[in-house]
């Protein structure tokens, strides 16, 4: 049986004006477990807190009820008071007789009556309270960043800058991501490489950052502060520590017909390659699908020319296990496939290209050395049509495209159109759009310049059909403003393809028990208040994996994610919220209902041996809650049909006791 003290606060006249506080203190004296009851003008004042502390000591109280303002106001205060007097802070219950009683009722008699009932409910609850201690877990002071694009690089740099070691895992042979493929960036038109490559170098040279390129995350176990991650380092058949990146092998390799993915297949590379000149790490990689040596055992040219002796045809995939305190997901995006958009003839004509391909075509390091030439015949195009929203905002064509707005296309199309007109004044440039969305800083001015200064023809309307005919592409479109059909003979058509999360995100989300929306973008812990955290504690989101973003937004979010990680890694120990779920293994059926409703992946299962009531021994699957991960929402407690799952601090019997007390 508890020894409960009740402390009724007047809050000056805030409570005492409508509630007879003395009558409340008197009435609650007789409740089961109550051994002391008093009232005071301001319980939260130092003098008030002293009354509580003294009573705890003098009456050897095991729990207290403070009838006062909202727990949102002073629960913490009174918990600290209790703790200072040697009482577990979770043995404190607040009865809200101000915001939810004296302030909303006017009749003294009725207000007093209600205050007594609310007090009784709190007493009934505290009678069933048990001291709670927040769980502690250590923090591994190392972060993992999955994805080496601008988002991942920036996050890693910021974390490293704060002094914590970071690992970047990148599936490609180099970091850099999509930004490395871009030519110029809107709205300032800086060269992408000029602003990205220094960051890549910084990352490569930082003593706090390790880059696992050509690698993937293959397993994640553990929880916030204590993740155990297995990283698969794919065999690249080149010893990274020996390769100097001289590039001789990539020139001598006899296998020249490998489509160059960095240039989106618009030119070829060798079977041993370095994706681009500024790659980090600048290490060659052998493409096992094309290497004659690996396929047939005949060749070995690269090995012969490599003076560093870095070539190793016997290399195997390597698995590295590492511990991390925090994980940042920065898996980025890809343009969607154009296969389903037959009307735009993407697969019929080489001269229908995507915007990313256009970036490569205009990039000085691209397949045409920056000269805008038609892919089909390498001729200079004169009439260029840009089509926006290809697969974006597809509410009625969900099977082909995406319902959401891809956000970046309006601006990069304006950039493309402007740059084309700037460099090639002899061109006619048309842009077909549904809306032009320019909500960023200096965005609208940028778009206006394209229209007004560079004479780009912006036409509101969608392209219905593109048909290759001889030398030209017959573009059939509607002009909604002038309400007419338009026919343009274009030399080049550029499709602003919608973007989608990288395909690696879905299996990764499963590994991380992080949730995703229907489009496979990662869900944030709270859309407004916790935009860079995933609901799974210790997992953070950076860049386009969470939703379409342009570079400045991505960098901002990357920094925000890094600051969250730094905040986590700066702690030596994590103190959990002690009001967490708890599974009674003896009653658990292992049915997985709780696991399925848990937004945090806090529930795991294990097979355990049980001595059954009939004296047999059975192996049963039972749930256990990871207290460091559980946030205490209680969804599992209702999903559990057997009642094996309960919530500390808001236990079934506590809530029922409150119900009973209120309904008496």
């Amino acid at each position, binding site marked *: 049986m508890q020894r409960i003290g009740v402390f009724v606060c007047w809050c000056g006249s805030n409570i005492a004006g409508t509630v007879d506080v003395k009558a409340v203190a008197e009435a609650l004296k007789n409740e089961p477990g109550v051994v002391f009851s008093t009232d005071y003008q301001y319980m939260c004042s130092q003098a008030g807190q002293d009354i509580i502390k003294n009573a705890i000591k003098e009456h050897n109280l095991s729990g207290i009820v403070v009838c006062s303002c909202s727990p949102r106001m002073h629960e913490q205060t009174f918990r600290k008071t209790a703790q200072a007097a040697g009482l577990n802070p979770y043995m404190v219950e607040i009865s809200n007789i101000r915001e939810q009683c004296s302030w909303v009722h006017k009749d003294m008699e009725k207000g007093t009556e209600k205050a007594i009932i609310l007090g009784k409910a709190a007493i009934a609850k505290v009678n069933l309270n048990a001291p709670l201690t927040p769980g502690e877990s250590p923090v591994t002071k190392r972060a993992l960043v999955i994805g080496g694009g601008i988002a991942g690089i920036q996050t890693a740099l910021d974390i490293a800058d704060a002094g914590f070691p970071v690992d970047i895992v990148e599936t490609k042979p180099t970091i850099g991501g999509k930004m490395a493929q871009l030519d110029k960036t809107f709205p300032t038109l800086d060269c992408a490489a000029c602003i990205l490559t220094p960051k890549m170098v910084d990352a490569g040279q930082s003593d706090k950052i390790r880059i696992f390129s050509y690698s993937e995350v293959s397993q994640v176990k553990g929880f916030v502060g204590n993740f155990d991650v297995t990283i698969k380092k794919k065999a690249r058949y080149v010893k990274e520590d020996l390769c100097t990146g001289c590039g001789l092998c990539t020139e001598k390799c006899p296998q020249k017909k490998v489509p160059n993915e960095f240039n989106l297949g618009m030119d070829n590379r060798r079977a041993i390659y370095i994706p681009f000149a500024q790659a980090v790490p600048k290490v060659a990689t052998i493409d096992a699908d094309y290497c004659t040596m690996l396929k047939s055992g005949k060749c070995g040219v690269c090995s012969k020319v490599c003076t560093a002796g870095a070539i190793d045809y016997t290399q195997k995939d390597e698995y590295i296990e590492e511990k991390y305190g925090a994980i940042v997901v920065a898996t980025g995006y890809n343009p969607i496939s154009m296969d389903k958009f037959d009307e735009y003839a993407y697969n019929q004509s080489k001269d229908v290209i995507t915007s990313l391909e256009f970036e490569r075509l205009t990039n000085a390091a691209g397949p045409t050395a920056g000269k805008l030439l038609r892919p089909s015949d390498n001729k200079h195009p004169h009439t260029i049509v840009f089509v926006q929203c290809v697969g974006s905002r597809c509410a009625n064509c969900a099977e082909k495209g995406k319902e959401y707005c891809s956000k970046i296309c309006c601006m990069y199309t304006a950039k493309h159109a402007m740059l084309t007109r700037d460099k090639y004044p002899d061109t006619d440039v048309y842009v077909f759009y549904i809306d032009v969305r320019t909500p960023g800083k200096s965005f609208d001015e940028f778009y206006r310049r394209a229209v007004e200064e560079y004479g780009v023809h912006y036409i509101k309307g969608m392209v219905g059909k593109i048909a290759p005919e001889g030398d030209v592409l017959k573009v059939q479109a509607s002009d909604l403003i002038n309400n007419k059909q338009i026919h343009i003979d274009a030399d080049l058509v550029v499709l602003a393809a919608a973007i989608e999360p990288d395909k690696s995100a879905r299996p990764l989300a499963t590994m991380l028990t992080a949730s995703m929306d229907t489009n496979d973008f990662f869900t944030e812990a709270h859309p407004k208040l916790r935009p860079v955290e995933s609901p799974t504690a210790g997992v953070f989101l950076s860049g386009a994996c969470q939703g379409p973003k342009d570079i400045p937004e991505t960098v901002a979010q990357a920094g925000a994610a890094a600051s969250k990680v730094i905040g986590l890694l700066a702690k030596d120990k994590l103190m959990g919220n002690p009001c967490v779920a708890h599974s009674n293994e003896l009653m658990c059926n292992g049915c997985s209902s709780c696991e399925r409703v848990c937004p945090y992946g806090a529930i795991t299962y294990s097979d355990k041996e049980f001595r059954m009531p009939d004296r047999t021994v*059975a192996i049963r699957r039972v749930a256990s809650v990871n207290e460091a991960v559980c946030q205490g929402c209680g969804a599992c407690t209702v999903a559990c049909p*057997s*009642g094996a799952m309960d919530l500390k601090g808001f236990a079934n019997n506590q809530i029922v006791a409150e119900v009973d007390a209120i309904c008496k």
Partner: protein
Amino acid sequence: MQKINSTMLIEKAAQLLENGTADRVLGWKKGEFDYDITPAVFNSVDQIKKEFVFGDFCGANLSKYLVKETRKGDGKVAVFLKPCDTYSFNQLLTEKRFDREKVYAVGISCEGMADIFKVKQIAGDGIVSVSSDGENVKVETLYDGEKTIKLSDVIAERCINCKSRKCVAYDELMGEEGEIIDSDRFDMVSKIESMSEDERFGFWQNELSKCIRCNACRNVCPACTCEKCVFDNPDSCAQNKAPADSFEEKMFHIIRAFHVAGRCTDCGECSRVCPQNIPLHLLNRKFIKDIDTFYGEYQAGAQVGSRAPLVDYTEGDIEPGEAVMKGESENA
């Protein structure tokens, strides 16, 4: 297509033991009369040949026994499952209640089981023997001699409203796989929905007041496989042994139905075993019907691993206020 009969099953059961596929068989055992058949575990071919039986009174759903039976020893358990039982089987697997590796499931096609109480209502007391040829039921009674009744007149209520004759899980199939069928199983639910509030209350007050809390509905239910039921657990705040007040009757049946909502495969065992003939399956069917209406059709047990509607959501789900109206007016 030949109807599955005792001989075929006895042969199969014996074969599974003999060839080592399984070391025990869950099946049905002959009773004292022709109709009082007991589910049983058979350990020997001898026993199978002597006691195994299959016929129109083998209504019992054997799937739930697998939870207990697979925990015993290492060998495999062979089990015979009618189409509706295969749904329970899948649902139990979804909830990981037994190890699939330890079971050899034989699906058997089914055209519906007979209800002995219907037979008695027609044939009268004192049944000495009862047998059927798949079309007619021959009954001999102490007082009225022999009578022939159409099997279709004594088919159990739940089989008349059968949702599916498709075996959705098995290692081996006897007879046809069967098909999902259109049934009028929600008719009675609709009928109650279209009653006035007072009539609905009257209907259920009358039905539930018959409850004696024998727990047969719960204990037979393949969805109720909790290690310990909340109603038996003194710490659950819901423990209760008898309907001491009419509230307790409602509490028990509402919560029981809620706990199996989205998990109930509609096998109808609850109503079959109720000694007080309370149409308990209607509570479960109400939930099934509502789930179908609110969230799209969902059949528990149709697939292993499917996500039950109550552990799932969409952002655009119906609001409770609208749901109540929809659950009421759908048929009005």
